[in-house]
Structure formats: C-alpha cells, structure tokens
C-alpha cells in the first residue's frame, strides 16, 4: 500500500498526517521520555512542585548512584538467567524442530499437535502447579529452578523452527546424507548456517521475554545471588502512594533505565528480526 492510495496525495494532508504521527509518538513515549529527563535531574529538580520537564544541567551522578541498585551482580544474574534460557531452549527447540521437519517418523504429527496445546492456555494458568513441580524437584532458590522450568516452554521455538525447516530444500539434506554425513553433521553444517533468519527471530523474542520476566524469578529466586533486575527494581515503584522509598526518584529512574538499556539497544538493533518473528505468526492465520 503506497502512501498516496489511502490518503490523498495533497501536500497539506501529508503535513497533517506527519504532524499527527509526531505528536502521537511523543505522547505515547512520554512516560519513558520523562524517565530519561528525570534521571538527569538533581533531587531538588525532580521533587519540585510544579514538576519540571527538563533538567537545567545534565546530572550523570544519578547513574553512578544507580549502580548501587543495579549492581554488576544484578546485571550478571540477569544476563545469566536470560542467556541460560535462550541457549538451552534454542538447542533443544532447534534440534527437535529439525527432526520434526526432516526426519519422518510415525508419530511426528502427534508430537506437533502436542506442542500446539499451550497456545490455548493463558500464561499464568500453570504457574501454581509449575511452582509445585519445581518445589518437588527441590529446585526452589536454585539457578536450575529459575531457568529450567522456563526452558520447558519449547512450543514457540519448536514450531517456529519446524515451520521454517519444512520449507527447507530436501535435496540439500538428502545430498549430504548420501555423501555419508551423519545427522548431527547435517544439522550443524548444512541446515544451521542457512537457518539464521528464524534463529535470529527466535533469539530476539526470547531475549526480550526472559530479560523482562518478573513473576517467576520473584517466586523462585528469593536469595540475593539469584536476584534479577526486575525483582531488584520492583520495591522501588512508587505505585499508588506516590512516595518513593529510601532511594530518591531521580536515582530510581536512572536504575530503571540502566536495567532497560541493554534490551532496548538490542531491540533497536535487532528490530527487523523481532518483527519478522511476530509478523510470521499472523501470516497463515
């Protein structure tokens, strides 16, 4: 759909449309823009009434102070949590997706059907029994309990990879097989290098989801050495009272931005892959 087809080509109409977009974009991102602005203010500026939109000077000290909240340890934990989920889930989802697409066996259709079940289950439906299973496995307050139950939700990745690999040329796989390549060789040397688009899409979605996860790490990781960024930030939220705790709002804003920075930068860089992953879901509906 080219621009001129739905809206008239007239310059005045285009100017209005552009202005509306700019205005709405600023309004929509205002909560985040103010977070940036407030994180650069001094304590006086951020608490003054009526509040100010912009800081008079750029005050980076808040970010230094925020490192006391978003400590390297917290960052390390969040990275470990995120990449633990990402890597383990990628390995088991990709290999299973490959097997379901390229290694025909009797029950393939049944297995694919099995993976379609959680589409119908709201996310929080199984969180209570999931907690109980984790408890029974003695995994509460361990990295295993944080990561492995989340790794178990392989449905999205497996179906995504299977879908891509079903359309992957059979003759490439067969040629390698006839040349005597083992299945792992086919998987790693033939298929994997050509499967970058779905892997990138999958990685983008999973990275974002895992980095921002709150309830599960809150329930399972009580101890300090398992604390991730979201769990660390949660008590700083002013919420209904409008009052912040011991940490002043400007430092809280800086800490929130520090926690969001890696994932936001990553998103802006990997936007295309992310959108492909989501847009793909709508394709065949």
């Amino acid at each position, binding site marked *: 759909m080219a621009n001129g*087809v*739905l809206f008239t080509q007239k310059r005045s109409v285009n100017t209005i449309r552009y202005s509306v977009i700019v205005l709405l974009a600023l309004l929509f991102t205002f909560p*985040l823009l103010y977070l940036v602005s407030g994180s650069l203010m001094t304590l006086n500026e951020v608490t003054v009434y009526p509040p100010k939109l912009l800081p008079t000077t750029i005050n980076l000290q808040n970010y230094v102070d925020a490192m006391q909240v978003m400590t390297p340890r917290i960052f390390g934990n969040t990275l470990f949590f995120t990449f633990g989920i990402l890597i383990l889930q990628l390995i088991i989802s990709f290999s299973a997706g490959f097997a379901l697409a390229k290694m025909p066996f009797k029950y393939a259709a049944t297995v694919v059907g099995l993976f379609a*079940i959680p589409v119908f*289950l709201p996310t929080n439906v199984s969180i*209570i029994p999931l907690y109980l*299973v984790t408890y029974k496995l003695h995994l509460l307050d361990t990295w295993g309990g944080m990561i492995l139950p989340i790794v178990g939700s392989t449905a999205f990745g497996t179906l995504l990879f299977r879908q891509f690999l079903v359309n992957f040329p059979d003759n490439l796989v067969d040629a390698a*097989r006839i040349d005597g390549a083992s299945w792992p060789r086919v998987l790693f040397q033939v298929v994997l290098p050509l499967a970058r688009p779905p892997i990138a899409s999958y990685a983008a979605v999973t990275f974002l989801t895992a980095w921002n996860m709150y309830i599960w790490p809150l329930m399972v990781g009580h101890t300090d050495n398992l604390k991730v960024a979201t769990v660390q930030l949660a008590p*700083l939220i002013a919420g209904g009272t409008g009052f912040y705790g011991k940490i002043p709002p400007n430092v809280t804003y800086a800490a929130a931005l520090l926690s969001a920075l890696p994932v936001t930068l990553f998103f802006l860089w990997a936007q295309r892959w992310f959108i492909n992953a989501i847009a793909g879901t709508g394709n065949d509906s």
Partner: protein
Amino acid sequence: MTQVKEKKVGTKNQLKRNDRFWLGVFIIPNLFMYTLFILIPSAVGVLLSFCEWNILGPIKWVGLENYRRLFTDELIMPAFGRSLQYLAYGVLPTVFGGFLLAVLLNWKVKGIGVFRAMFFLPLTVSSAVAGISWSSIFNPEAGWINLLLKKFGITGPEWLSSFTWALPSVTIIVIWLSLPLVIILYLAGLQRISPEIMEAAALDGANVWQRIWGIVFPCVASTTTLVVVIEILAFLGSPFEISLLMVQGGPLDATTSLAYYAYKVAFEQFEIGYASAVVMAQFFVFLGVALIVLRIRKSIKARG
C-alpha cells in the same frame, strides 16, 4: 510427503537404527522438558482443582467441592467482575487503537522508521520499568495527567490510590504495554492487502475514514481475530503483574483480578486445591469469551 522421503533417505536399511538413535537425541530432551514443565503442571493443575492441599499436609480428593465453593465465595464474584472489567476496558481500545496507529504508520516516508520504533518501545521495557515510569504520570499531586487536568480547571482523581480509578489506571498501563504488538501485527497484515484493492478504494469517492473502516479493516479480518484472542489473554493475565507491582492488588482489592486472586489463595492462604479451581474458572472465562468472539467473526463472515 512422508512416504517419498522414506524412500529417498531410508534406502540403506542398516542406517535405520542409527537414524532412530539421532531422532531420539534431537527430540527427547525437548519432549522431556516440555512434558515435565508444561504438560505435567497443566495436568496437575486440573487434578488439584478436585483436591484439598496446603502443600505441607497430605493431598485429599474432594471431588467437586472446590467448584461448589466458587459459587459461595464472596470474594470471587468481585474478582471475576474485575477480570471482565479489564477485558471490557482494555481489549477493544487496544485492537482498534492499534489498527488505526498501524494505518497511520503504514507510510513510506522519511523518518517513519524512527516513529515506528517509538511506538514499539514499550515492548522492550519490563513491567517493573513501566511501573516506575507510570508512577510519575499517575501521581495524584505532582503527576503529569493531573497537572494537565488542572490547566483545564479539573481536579483529577487519585488514580492508583483511588478505589474507583485504580482499575482503569492499571488498564491504561496494560494497553500501553500491549499496543506495540498489535501495531506490528496490523502493519504486517496491511502489507498483504493487494494494491489493486487500495486503488479501487481510492476511486470510489468515500472519504478516508470510510475507506479505513469500510475497505481496509475487512481486509485484515484474520489479523483482527488473532489480535483479539491475544489481547483477551493479555488482559486476563497482565493486569495481575502490573497490579502486583504497583498497588499489590489494592486499594481494597480494587485491582485484584481472577489471576491475582488465584495467586493470593495459593501463596497467601496456601489453599492449592481451591486456587487451582479459581485458575480453571479463569480458563473457562477465556474459553467463553474466545468462543463468543469466534462466533461473532463467523456471523460477520456469513453476512459477507
């Protein structure tokens, strides 16, 4: 297709056993994890809804007792009502708003990428970060909304600390968090409309507004169905997290949805069996609402 492949690859019979070994290596770890952490918990959840259990004691089968209790529980009807309120206030604005924004952003013009990215941003922030940034918007005295209302001579409500306004406030935050996904899905849907249809639309003399709803919207009907189902799930689930983070279900339970209530019953009262029944009730709400949506979709389709 299966048959054909079998012949191509399976000609060397001695490889068969080897094939099966690798098939197992590729699939079993996945199936094991999936069964252990998705299928079993789901089944356990259903079974526990027929039992009484406080985690420490023995599990006792009580049949339909938990479900009977659902109908006499004085706290569940309000929670149920609030879940419906989240759905009522949240789903349609998100779907229609997301659609209109996608139409607006579906434009090949300089700098559009930047503005699209701005609309996608809430997708990248956690609920915790969203909670911190929206606190500054909803603050009763120094919050930006009430300052703006004051300019027009209106005294704004206390938003998150008001019994009446807390639920709409949480809904607004969930809408904000949900819109990016809806915009992305509709942008993808709009790409698939054929240029001929759009050109025909331009010629038939209707104004932009009529063309958007009369011609473009029906063209993305399959996207709409998908988006509606996704958003029903989102508004049944996400208010729980936002409410937990910002107001802990309050004030006076004003933002406690079914999902939150189940969480409270399970982890504050340790009534795992009854909590599971509440979760099942929520599942049936979803099923009911989704079926109504699909029925509406069908009847619209039938009318042409």
